[in-house]
């Protein structure tokens, strides 16, 4: 296997006496979906916050092999630099759209970096110079492309906060895709989706990683998503990695089953995850 896109080495995050992530190491590869699962409070979202600059990890390294900018240490970057320079973009567990702006505006804001440069820090934009107008037209084209792809184009002018929840989740993914990510970190993208919507999400994630070679890091509780789309699963419990491997391996891993279902006190058979077998 080639070198990983993202390499997390011995990452720890402590809040006072609480160790939220304990000496975690994980590789994320191009064109693959890596899922991070674990019970509530296992440290999954904390991991995302460490990767994307919202938290400074207490120790450890997060190295990104950027195709154009070389090796970047994500733990040293600010949160906005992680997105603008390293092109690692995340979504949030509870959707964070710009609720009063329209869907299209949400997607244009995501292209701020490029547009701001094209507008020569507002001057060219102020006078409506052709270079800026071209950049704006291009940004709109990108946004329209993402909206079409996520079947949101009919709602382009809708106020984002007024959309149904499942659609807001899609808008958030569309918006993240507008930043041109090389690594997309999705925090529970299937939460609150109905079965049909989550099947659509599966298809989308597979096409993003399979056809476009995007690396996806996924936190998810919905096993029908995790087991179906993941190439690699990492299981966390109390901040520690307890297992790692393919969906098939995880399904039968004793430690994983124990973490999820607890000790087998009452003589019940350890259950299978509810997800259908992959592919």
């Amino acid at each position, binding site marked *: 296997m080639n070198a990983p896109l993202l390499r997390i080495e011995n990452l720890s995050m402590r809040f006072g006496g609480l160790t939220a992530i304990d000496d975690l190491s994980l590789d994320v590869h191009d064109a693959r979906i890596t899922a991070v699962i674990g019970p509530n409070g296992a440290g999954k979202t904390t991991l995302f916050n460490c990767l994307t600059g919202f938290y400074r990890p207490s120790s450890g390294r997060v190295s990104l092999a950027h195709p154009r900018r070389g090796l970047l240490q994500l733990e040293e970057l600010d949160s906005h630099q992680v997105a603008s320079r390293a092109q690692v973009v995340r979504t*949030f567990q509870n959707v964070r759209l710009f609720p009063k702006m329209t869907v*299209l505006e949400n997607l244009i804001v995501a292209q701020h970096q490029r547009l701001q440069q094209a*507008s020569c820090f507002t001057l060219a934009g102020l006078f409506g110079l052709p270079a800026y107008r071209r950049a704006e037209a291009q940004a709109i084209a990108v946004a329209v492309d993402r909206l079409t792809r996520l079947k949101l184009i009919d709602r*382009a*002018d809708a106020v984002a906060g007024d959309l149904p929840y499942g659609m807001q989740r899609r808008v958030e993914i569309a918006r993240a895709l507008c930043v041109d990510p090389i690594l997309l970190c999705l925090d529970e993208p299937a939460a609150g989706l109905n079965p049909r919507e989550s099947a659509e999400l599966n298809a989308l994630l597979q096409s993003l990683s399979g056809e476009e070679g995007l690396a996806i890091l996924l936190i998810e509780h919905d096993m029908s998503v995790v087991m179906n789309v993941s190439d690699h699963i990492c299981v966390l419990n109390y901040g520690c990695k307890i297992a790692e491997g393919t969906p098939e391996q995880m399904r039968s891993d004793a430690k994983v089953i124990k973490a999820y279902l607890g000790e087998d006190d009452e003589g019940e058979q350890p259950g299978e995850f509810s997800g259908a077998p992959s592919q």
Partner: protein
Amino acid sequence: MRVVVAQHAPSLRERLKDAAAVACVALLLGVPMIGLTTVDQGGALHVATRWPVLAIFVTLCFIGRLLARFGLDRLQLRRRSRPAAVSALRGTGALTAWVGWSCLGVALALPVIFSDNRYVVDTATTVLIYVMLGWGLNVVVGLAGLLNLGYAAFYAVGAYAYALLSTQFGWGFWQALPVAGAFAAGFGLLLGWPTLRLRGDYLAIVTLGFGEITRVILINWTDLSNGPNGIASIPRPTFFGLPFKPDGDTPTFASFFGIEFSPLHRIIFLYYLILALAMLTNLFVSRLRKLPVGRAWEAIREDEIACQALGINVTNVKLSAFAISAMLGGCAGVFFAARQGFISPESFTFNESAIVLAIVVLGGTGSQLGVVLASLVLVLLPELGRDFADYRMLLFGAAMILIMIWRPGGILAKREPTLRYRALSRDGGGP
């Protein structure tokens, strides 16, 4: 309780109970405020009672509440029964534009219509100063969502910058305007930098402090600002170098155009000057709103954390909002100093910041036309209310409360999108 009221019309019993509760509160408040009064009897103060007046007051409150409740319920019922408000909403954009253009038309024609009425033109000039200040503050409060209670500080910085540059160094209005604006923008950065991490109430307190600090410095730094005595004889703006004075040795505005001198010329010129400055501000801000920086302002108002996750440098965005808002406030200050000819720290109290903020909030945060309507209300009401003498500010407060009840989001609360896919695809023609 509110929900119940909204769902079915309350019985007479409920209404009476509600009104009685209000009358009780009125009684409690009324005993010390109305029931008891002090009278001066031969140098000694005695407490006298006015029970009949109190009784009238409480009865009025009772009846008033009964009627108000009844009226509000009727209003709510009618609103509920109105069919989907979609069609009404679609019309808002066109209506806003129409009202905006007619406001501009009236503003342009006003000095012509009232060419012999100095009071009207003067008041209109004051309204326009507040419109410009409101548009400036709107950048930081309405668009970027950062509460600023010290806006008068930037107004003061602009005014003092022009006053000092003109009296000490002999600079003209047009030379000083950009420099004073830049100076105020610098102060905006100065305020913005330490408050980057603050939001909401905390930011409001710091900006309030900043406004007061600026005023106190102006009072105490006598060498620079001449302290509480202020700066007098600030040169008035000229008409491209032609001063507005009675005929003299040098050509004046009146002699150049061969018309008879009238002190009104300057008043009208100042009016058009502030109108032009305000319109320039409007153009500038509404253009910025459609640029990346303006969209980023609105985005940080909506969700700062999401902005960071999308690669927006929140620090820069906030600082740019502070700087541009301060610059516009500073330019308004330059005009203020040039118009008054005299400034002192008295003119830049917290009251001034509060009025400008009230204009932005009442107008509907983020709405350009709302600011115009709100400044009309807030500046004209106290003017029109002069006949009511002591009750002037009471009237003012009541108007503010009524606007907030009638339109909790401000007079014009609806946000216009900065771009529309439907319009774009129609222009593009499509395949």
